[in-house]
């Protein structure tokens, strides 16, 4: 039995059902990535797994117990979430923001300790922001800011870390930067990572376990090398494509089909009505 699982959950907001009777297991120590077209329910599933959304039916289990009946702080010491949008309080420094990740480990009687201090420093070092401690979060670039939020989630010291579209709004180099960081955290610290990603090629390159969703259902799951095929991409995304080995990593690389054959030499084709 894996640590984090969903048992035939029905998910939705108000009356709108997003997914019905969905079951999923997150393999321990995996870097699991959930992909699928917009509105397929991938973020909704992640929210349910992270206790943000209560299933209408079914249950999410963390270490064999229903996640919604566990004390909030206990969950927060086991499972961390990097939500899509977080707000940095105005005028907060990087070190102070990262330190807020220690929240679930503190209480009225247990205040700030040298142990907390050490963990905050380690979290900042492992996300490569060790030198930015005294800078204001407002001053940082988007990529640096995302590292700060990841450092905060790391300081929470949870064996499981969930990330909801951690690369959205970032430039391509920062996207790769953040994903490399995630892969490193997964490999060196043995944490279980679950991320929702938009880019199928990023997912195929970084995931050790891939979950492909469409219209609230899981279409396929497994190692990217085994499940990512042209047929699957067409079924999940409705996109005609070729799948070739990534020249860098050998993982599947999805090349969308051209609009029409020979389009890449479109410049040479006479344009109708042209002189």
């Amino acid at each position: 039995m894996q640590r984090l699982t969903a048992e035939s959950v029905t998910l939705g907001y108000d009356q709108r059902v997003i997914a019905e009777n969905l079951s999923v297991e997150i393999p321990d120590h995996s870097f699991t990535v959930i992909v699928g077209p917009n509105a397929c329910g991938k973020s909704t599933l992640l929210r349910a797994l992270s206790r943000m959304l209560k299933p209408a039916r079914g249950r999410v289990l963390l270490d064999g117990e229903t996640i919604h009946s566990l004390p909030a702080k206990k969950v927060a010491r086991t499972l961390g979430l990097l939500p899509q949008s977080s707000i940095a309080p105005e005028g907060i420094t990087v070190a102070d923001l990262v330190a807020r990740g220690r929240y679930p480990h503190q209480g009225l009687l247990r205040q700030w300790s040298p142990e907390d201090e050490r963990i905050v420093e380690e979290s900042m070092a492992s996300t490569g922001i060790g030198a930015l401690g005294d800078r204001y979060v407002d001053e940082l670039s988007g990529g640096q800011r995302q590292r700060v939020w990841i450092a905060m989630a790391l300081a929470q010291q949870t064996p499981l870390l969930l990330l909801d579209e951690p690369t959205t709004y970032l430039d391509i180099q920062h996207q790769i930067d953040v994903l490399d960081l995630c892969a490193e955290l997964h490999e060196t610290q043995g944490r279980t990572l679950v991320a929702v990603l938009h880019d199928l090629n990023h997912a195929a390159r970084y995931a050790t376990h891939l979950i492909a969703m469409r219209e609230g259902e899981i279409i396929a799951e497994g190692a990217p090398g085994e499940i990512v095929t042209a047929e699957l991409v067409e079924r999940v995304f409705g996109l005609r494509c070729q799948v070739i080995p990534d020249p860098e990593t050998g993982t599947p690389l999805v090349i969308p089909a051209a609009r029409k054959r020979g389009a890449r030499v479109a410049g040479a084709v006479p344009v109708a009505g042209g002189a």
Partner: protein
Amino acid sequence: MAVAALVLVCLASIAIGAKGLPLADVWHGLFHYAGSGDDVLVRKVRIPRTVLGLIVGAALGLAGAVMQALTRNPLAEPGLLGVNAGASAAVVSAISFFGVTSLTGYVWFAFAGAAIVSVAVYLLGGSRSANPVRLALAGTAVTAALYGYVNAVQLLDSAALDRLRFWTVGSLASANMETVGKVWPFIALGVLLTLLIARPLNALEMGDDTARSLGAHLTRTRVLAMLAVTLLCGAATAACGPIVFIGLMIPHLVRAITGPDMRWILPYAAVLSPVLLLGADVVGRVVARPSELQVGIVTALLGGPVFIHLVRRKRMSQL
């Protein structure tokens, strides 16, 4: 330094008044009380007034800091969001229609008024999708309507006019130890509550999802925070009438000193708010000698420009 400023302004509040007393006489009243007219003035008027200013100032400053954190809105303030207006409208109704005359009676009406209006403004401001500007607009509209009501009651009930005037503009002038004795337990409870929720408020400021993923209890924190604000504003308004802008100015000033950690903001706000309130009260006593300007008017005069500055400094989208 903040504490030194507080001590200084307390001394000024005792020493300076509409009636110019030489310092020697003030000293005499404080330490060699003999029952002379001036001694009575110091003991029975200025000291209670200063003590009341202290606790009411702290209450308003803390309420403002909590509201700003809770709504993630730099313009949130008990005066601006109509909480104080709600409390005064309730008190005015109590006096005029229910014949309530004791402060103990006012306090409960003030609590009810403050609580109803905070919920109403929150709903009018778009509840979950509330943005700072909508919330401030809703607060302003509700405040205007409530003061219209308060004024109407005053005009219609000429017998009660004098007692009511106090409730349109905040004032410390009628302070006595009895008032202090009646409101301090409520304010103390409110202060205790705000200190207990300082850490969860820190978490809440980072957005609902982040707060929840850190293990903070959103609903519990919000309810306790609203309870604290109601206690603080209700008690303060019951004792002095509505005083605006203290809760807006002080938390901003404090943030500039301490940064965004509520565990520092709250104690600083509790110390510096009475400095502003008592300072404004002293100014009000001096500028219109031998009469007095009510402290509510002075804080409004000081606070207006600060409010405009805040709105102008930030682009509205950032608010």
